C-alpha cells in the first residue's frame, strides 16, 4: 500500500469525520479523488444495507395487510403504497427534512422542560437517521408492492397441499406461503435493491445537508468536479465504484435466490 498511502491515511475515513479536516483544494491528485470518493461510498452502503434490511420486514407486513380481507388493514396499506410509489423520492426527502426540522421547534413550544424529546428529535434532521427513515419507508412501499404481486401468484396447488397435510395459520404461512412468495418475488426484489442502492446518492446531494463536509460518494465527486472543472475524472471514478458494488449486490442476491430455488428442478426454474 505504498501508493496513495498518505491520502489513504488522511481521507479513508473522512466521510465519518476521522482524519484530515480540510478537503484538498489545490493540486488535487487522482489518489485524493479515489480515496475520498471511496470514503463517501461508506454512506451509500450504510444507507442501502440498513434500509433494505429493515424494509424487508415492513414490506412483508404491508404486503400481507394489502392482501387482507379486512378494510382497516387493506386501505392504509394501499394508501401507503400509493403515496410512496406515486411521488418522487426527491420530494419525499424534502418533505421529510422540512417536517423533521419543524418537529423540534414544535416540541419546544408544546412541552417545555422535556429536554429528552427535543434531543431525540434533533437526530431526525441528521442524515444518518432522517434520510435512513425516508429510504426505509420508500423501499418498504416498493417492495411491498412486489411482495403483494408475488403473494397473489403463489400457486393454488401449494396452498391445497398445505391444507391437505394439516398445516394452518402461522405455520402454513411460514412453511409454504412465505417461501413461495419470496421465490416468486426474488428477481424483482433484486432490481428494487439495486434501485435503492442507486437512490442513496440523493441523500446529501438534494436535501440533508452534509455536516462538516461528511458526505457520500456523489457529494465528494461533485465537489471535485466543481473544484477542477473536469467532470471526466471524478464521475467515472464514482461510476466504477457503483458498478463494482452493484455487481456484488447482484451476486449476493443471486446466491440467495439460488438457495430459495434449490428444491426446484433445474429445467423448471
Amino acid at each position, binding site marked *: 500500500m505504498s501508493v496513495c498511502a498518505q491520502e489513504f491515511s488522511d481521507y479513508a475515513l473522512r466521510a465519518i469525520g476521522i482524519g484530515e479536516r480540510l478537503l484538498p483544494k489545490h493540486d488535487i491528485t487522482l489518489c485524493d479523488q479515489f480515496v475520498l470518493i471511496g470514503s463517501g461510498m461508506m454512506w451509500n452502503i450504510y444507507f442501502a444495507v440498513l434500509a433494505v434490511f429493515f424494509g424487508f420486514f415492513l414490506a412483508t407486513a404491508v404486503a400481507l395487510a394489502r392482501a387482507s380481507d379486512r378494510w382497516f388493514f387493506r386501505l392504509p396499506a394501499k394508501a401507503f403504497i400509493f*403515496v410512496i410509489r406515486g411521488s418522487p423520492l426527491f*420530494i419525499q426527502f*424534502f418533505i421529510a427534512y422540512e417536517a423533521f426540522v419543524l418537529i423540534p421547534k414544535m416540541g419546544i413550544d408544546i412541552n417545555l422542560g422535556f429536554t429528552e424529546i427535543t434531543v431525540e428529535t434533533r437526530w431526525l434532521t441528521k442524515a444518518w437517521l432522517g434520510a435512513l427513515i425516508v429510504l426505509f419507508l420508500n423501499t418498504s412501499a416498493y417492495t411491498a408492492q412486489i411482495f403483494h404481486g408475488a403473494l397473489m401468484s403463489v400457486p393454488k396447488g401449494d396452498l391445497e397441499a398445505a391444507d391437505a397435510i394439516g398445516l394452518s395459520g402461522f405455520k402454513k404461512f411460514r412453511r409454504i406461503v412465505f417461501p413461495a412468495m419470496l421465490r416468486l418475488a426474488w428477481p424483482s426484489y433484486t432490481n428494487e435493491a439495486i434501485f435503492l442502492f*442507486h437512490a442513496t*446518492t440523493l441523500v446529501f446531494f438534494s436535501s440533508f445537508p452534509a455536516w462538516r463536509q461528511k458526505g457520500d460518494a456523489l457529494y465528494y465527486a461533485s465537489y471535485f468536479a466543481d473544484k477542477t472543472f473536469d467532470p471526466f475524472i471524478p464521475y467515472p471514478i464514482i461510476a466504477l465504484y457503483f458498478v463494482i458494488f452493484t455487481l456484488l449486490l447482484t451476486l449476493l442476491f443471486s446466491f440467495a435466490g439460488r438457495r430459495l430455488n434449490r428444491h426446484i428442478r433445474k429445467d423448471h426454474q
Partner: protein
Amino acid sequence: MFEYCADPGSLDSLQWWSCYLTTGKQFMFYESFGTVLALLFLTAPVILLFGFGGAMARRSRVLPLRWFGLAYSSMVRGVPDIIFFMFALIALDQGIEYIRHITLCPDWTEPVRQGNDFVVCPQAKMPLSSAPQWVHQVYGFFLAVIGFAFVFGAFAANTLYGAFQAVPHAQLETAAAFGMSRAKMFRRILLPQMWVYALPGLSNLWMILIKATPLLFLLGVQDIVYWAKELGGAKTARFTYPHGDWRLGYFLVLLVFYLALTWLSERVFDRLTKRVSRGQATMGGTT
C-alpha cells in the same frame, strides 16, 4: 392583481390569500409546473428515438455497433442515473464550448485546461455572457432535455430490445419464407407487434421519468422545486407578504401534483394496453 392588494398588511385572511396567491412570483411558480410538463412531453419522443437507436444498434449485424448498443443499454443498470445527469450535462456543456472554441477562435494559443480551470475564449461561451437571462434558461433547459433523453434512452433501449426479441420467432420465419427482405420484415411484422411487449416496460419508464423530473432542480433549471424553496422560505416583515417557513406546505402541493400525474398516467396506460393488445395472441388479446 386586485385593487385592494395595495396594502396587504391591512387585509383580512381571505382577501390576503387571494392577493398572496396572485402575486407575480406565485405566477412564476404556477408556470414552472408547465416547465415540468414541457420537459416530460418534449423528452418522451427523444427518449424513444435514443431507445430505438440503442435497440437497433444492439440488433445490428455489425459487431462494433452491437457492442456499442450493449454497452449503452446496460450502463444504467450499474451506475445511478443521477451520476449520469451530473456528468452528461457538464460534459455536453464543455464539449459544445470546446468545439465553438476551436472553430471561432483559431488564433487562441493558451490551453483550454489551465490547472483547475476550463477556459475558452469569450466568443465561444455558450450562451454568450452578453445574452439575456432567458437565453441562459432556455439553453439550460435544452441541456436538461438532452441529458434526460440520454439516460432514459438507455432504459428504453433495454425495453425495446426485449420487446423485439419477444415477438414470436415463427412469424419472422414465415415472413422470410414469403421472401420479404430484412427491412420489410422489420416494418411489416416486427414493428407493429412489438408494442404489446414494449408497453409495460415503457409505461414503467414513463413513471420513472415523471418521478425523475425534480432532478431538474439539481441541474439549475428554475422548476417547481426551485420555486417551492424560494417562495416557501420564511419571509420577514420587510416583505409585502410576511410569513413563516412554509416550505413543508409548498412541498406537499408538489406531492399532490405528482400523485395526480402518476395516477392519471396509470389510467391512460391501462387504456392503451387494452388497445394495443387487441387481436394479439396473448392473454389480454384473446378476450
